[in-house]
């Protein structure tokens, strides 16, 4: 994180470059059931981030030696398309993508009743179509919707959001330029009902006080995300219900 141009991230009126307040999320749109072949899928637009997630499974594990006798394996592939970044990204997975794949699988597993599906795998495939900071939180958020869409029994959802520090100020949900020039980034994910933290990463520098503030702000963010998730599920549920009724009427 470079300090260069850092004075530019907050405007004189205290607003951020995109006119958001310190605790304001970018505009977010979620859609459930966008793909036909996958067992479950969802799409999210979070600011300029555009991400699609698909679930396959529970299904047979290949190679079989990876399967677990007492629960389902949860496997994730987080991938960015070459055109999702400013400079073209090579299609082969980068070290960053490998890490995020692992971190996302770890963060979403706690909400799945994996013990219902021993010897199977639940495959999570994430494709980032456009990125602008905060893709891991957006990916995790949309993944939990896709899991719901797949009809996999869940204990809760996972809602994710980052807080960070720009120009010395704690802010919510940093976009690409804020992420790049800011001083710290704290992406987290919670299970909204029990407020349990299932993902937490941090880089940059925080004092403990700053961290505390950022953590609380991020949790507030997660709660707002949860509301949008619920709304998306409700909408989908109503549509499904209506369609089911329509079919029954026919």
């Amino acid at each position: 994180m470079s300090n260069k141009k850092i004075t530019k991230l907050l405007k004189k009126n205290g607003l951020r470059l995109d006119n958001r307040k310190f605790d304001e999320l970018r505009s977010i749109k979620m859609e459930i059931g966008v793909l036909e072949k996958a067992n479950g899928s969802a799409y999210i637009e979070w600011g300029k981030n555009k991400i699609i997630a698909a679930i396959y499974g529970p299904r047979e594990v290949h190679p079989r030696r990876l399967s677990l006798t007492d629960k389902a394996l949860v496997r994730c592939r987080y991938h960015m398309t070459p055109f999702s970044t400013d400079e073209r990204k090579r299609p082969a997975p980068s070290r960053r993508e490998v890490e995020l794949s692992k971190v996302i699988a770890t963060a979403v597993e706690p909400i799945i009743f994996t013990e219902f599906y021993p010897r199977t795998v639940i495959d999570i495939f994430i494709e980032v179509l456009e990125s602008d900071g905060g893709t891991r939180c957006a990916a995790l958020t949309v993944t939990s919707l896709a899991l719901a869409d797949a009809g996999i029994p869940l204990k809760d959802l996972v809602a994710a959001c980052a807080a960070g520090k720009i120009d010395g100020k704690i802010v919510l949900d940093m976009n690409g330029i804020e992420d790049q020039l800011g001083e710290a980034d704290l992406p987290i994910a919670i299970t909204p009902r029990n407020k349990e933290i299932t993902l937490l990463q941090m880089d940059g520098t925080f004092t403990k006080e700053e961290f505390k503030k950022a953590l609380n702000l991020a949790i507030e963010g997660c709660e707002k995300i949860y509301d949008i998730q619920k709304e998306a599920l409700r909408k989908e549920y109503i549509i499904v219900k209506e369609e089911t009724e329509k079919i029954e009427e026919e």
Partner: protein
Amino acid sequence: MSNSYGIMESIKRKKISELLKYDKRLDGRGLMDFRKIKIETGMIGTAAGSALVSLGNTKVMTGIKVETGTPFTDKPKSGVLTTNVELTPLASPNFEAGPPREKAIEMARVVDRGIREAKAIDLSKLCIDPGKLVFIVYVDIYVLNHDGNLFDAFALSAISALLNAKMKKYTVKKNGELKYGKGYIKLPVQNYPVEISIGKLDGKMIVDPSLEEEAVVDGLITIAIGKKGEICAMQKRKTGVFSVEDILLAITIAQKKAKEIRENILGELIAKNKKA
């Protein structure tokens, strides 16, 4: 181990074949009907151009990136076109993550040939400093949902994304140095190839085979047609054979369908691109 024709496929083959006798198809289409085509463009801000194409339930996205690089030694004054296809695991239970395999490579190369041989992009206009620096146009094609006929969807999304693509205005200094200005220009698109895949089953021809049809047709051929009806690329696929008459009939069909798609579906994008 797997059977090359599963039981389900055998049953489906029978049904598809039975219907074809009456010139009908499983999903109610006529033999010469495409599924519904929808094209959205320009949704990806980080891409120079982008297009999301739906062909029935088949969904593919193409993003264009334009970067600078060195030309090939045998074409020092020509920009470079690079086409890549990813059969993402999102799109089908049968696709695996990993580097592109045989299938994806064949698809990428056929789409690439359609664009290249039609001279869809005027690569001579993408030279900056001969032998040293040229623009590279990356065409990255991603399938999101695979419900058959990826070839046609890929080609359509590729040309749509190219028509949508813009690059920064630039000037080249005398010493060959590149300088970007303000504003954007369109990519130099000059032809609009459309690929049409035609399946053959029990002597009948169908266009735009669905996933189920693709699995059971004997013969399959993809033909790329340029704006003047010229044939730019062909690729016979699958092991089924064709007669000379089959091939000539397929070309007639392809020319007709390509024209329809170019005019009805791509028309607006082409007009926009020309205006710019």
